[in-house]
């Protein structure tokens, strides 16, 4: 894991988590369909899981070990939230919690990216 790769992967996680949060927001406001939320949340969860596996399997450069672990853990948590959204695509109160968790994950990924 190089500085550049770490920065790119953090950016990807921020993008996936923000998009997930936007999707959950649609559920909270009743402005979407369950079929769309289920399908798109599964796509986002799958990409986020892949990202977590890739980050987990890399050998970090000096000074990046702890941040890489944090990024992988953050990605796994975001993937779990996205899977939960896919499993309950019409649960507005659950979606509100997921929206907030994914928004926090996106902020944390952004901070990690800036710290690299």
């Amino acid at each position: 894991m190089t500085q550049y790769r770490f920065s790119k992967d953090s950016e990807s996680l921020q993008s996936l988590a923000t998009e997930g949060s936007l999707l959950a927001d649609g559920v909270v406001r009743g402005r979407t369909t369950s079929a769309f939320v289920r399908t798109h949340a599964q796509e986002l969860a799958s990409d986020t899981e892949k990202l977590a596996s890739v980050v987990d399997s890399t050998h970090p450069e000096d000074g990046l070990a702890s941040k890489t672990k944090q990024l992988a853990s953050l990605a796994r948590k975001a993937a779990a939230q996205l899977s939960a959204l896919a499993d309950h695509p019409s649960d507005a109160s659950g979606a509100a919690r997921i929206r907030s968790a994914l928004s926090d994950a996106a902020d944390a990924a952004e901070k990690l990216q800036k710290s690299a």
Partner: protein
Amino acid sequence: MTKVFQISLGVLAAIGGFVDIGDIVFNATAGATLGYQLIWAIVVGAVGIMVYSEMCGRVACVAKRPVFDVVRERLGYKVGLTTLLASQFVNAMTCAAEVGGVAIVLRYLFGLPYRPLIAVALLILLLSVWFLPFEWIERVFGFGGLLLIVFAVAAVKLDPNMSALEHGLIPHIDTPSPLIWCYFAVGVLGAAFMPYEVYFYSSGGVEDGWVPPHDLKLNKLTAIAGYGLGAVLSISIMVVAAELFVPQGIEPGFLGTVALAAQTPLGEAGLLLALLGMFFAISGAAIDTSLAGAYNMAQFFGWEWGKYRKPGGAPRFTLTWVAFFGLSFLVVISGVDPIFVTELSVVFSVVALPLTYVPILLVAGDSNYMGRHANGRLASTLGWLYLVVIVVISLAAVPLLVLTNMGEG
């Protein structure tokens, strides 16, 4: 109303070039990466494809010669065959991506598993082309694709930055990565010139039975209105991506991300209209590419061709478009990502562009073929100017693909 229906050939051909699965995601990614910086590329590409479609429609109308007929005669058998192989490869890749795209949209609409929906998509496409007359294929899928106009409504609702939008009409680089800018510029321009658009358009002119002089005006109107609408849809997608995704740092990687951009300002109605528009546009592009593949083969080898004939009246032509759909099904069911395939096909198609467009330019300017309908000064000047653009993008496409890691930096 009749006049509106008459331009449906241009609308369907343009939808294939401007808002197929790859373009939808590519334009959104360009908007999310570079904001409004590449609006000019859509406009330049649209004017270029209008110029060349008008030319090949005119040749089809006056000389009754669709593009591949002309390619074989002007380039000779060997170079013609190379052009045929290159374009059929791109047609097949694109058709596969579109079939996968139709299944993805059905999944967003109904929430069913992806693989069975690939079979459903294939069935819808096969039955549509088999049973619908050519003019109804144009109308259903061309005008259905115009539901994507919902992105223009979404763009207005998002209250875009008009001065940035106007500035986007002038080429300028405002990014620390000029190579990424070049990659997206070449991709947006290349997508406008996808060769299957002119194969489909010129053969469609013959299918629609265009005759001079009346249909020469219709050809001009069809090219300008059809591709003009395609460009408006493309620009709208770029604008919503710039407004919504740039501030939030979202990198669109799915069709669903783009649909989300219609849902955010317009709610469930916006989402459903965007998904239905994508269904018709991507299905239309799948039909464009499969028929273009069959037209090319039939015209190159001198077979009977045309949707106006019953399937048994042009058996090899019919078998070819069915084979295109069948091959697409096999490619997509193997698990290949349709969006990745179509983005690659846009870049590889630009390599074959000069071989398609040079013969059109030469024949449209030849008064032995075209008589008094040969290219005038304006068409000729624009044609040569755009040929330079086509050659430049065809030379730059692959190096940029490699240097920018497909735009990911």
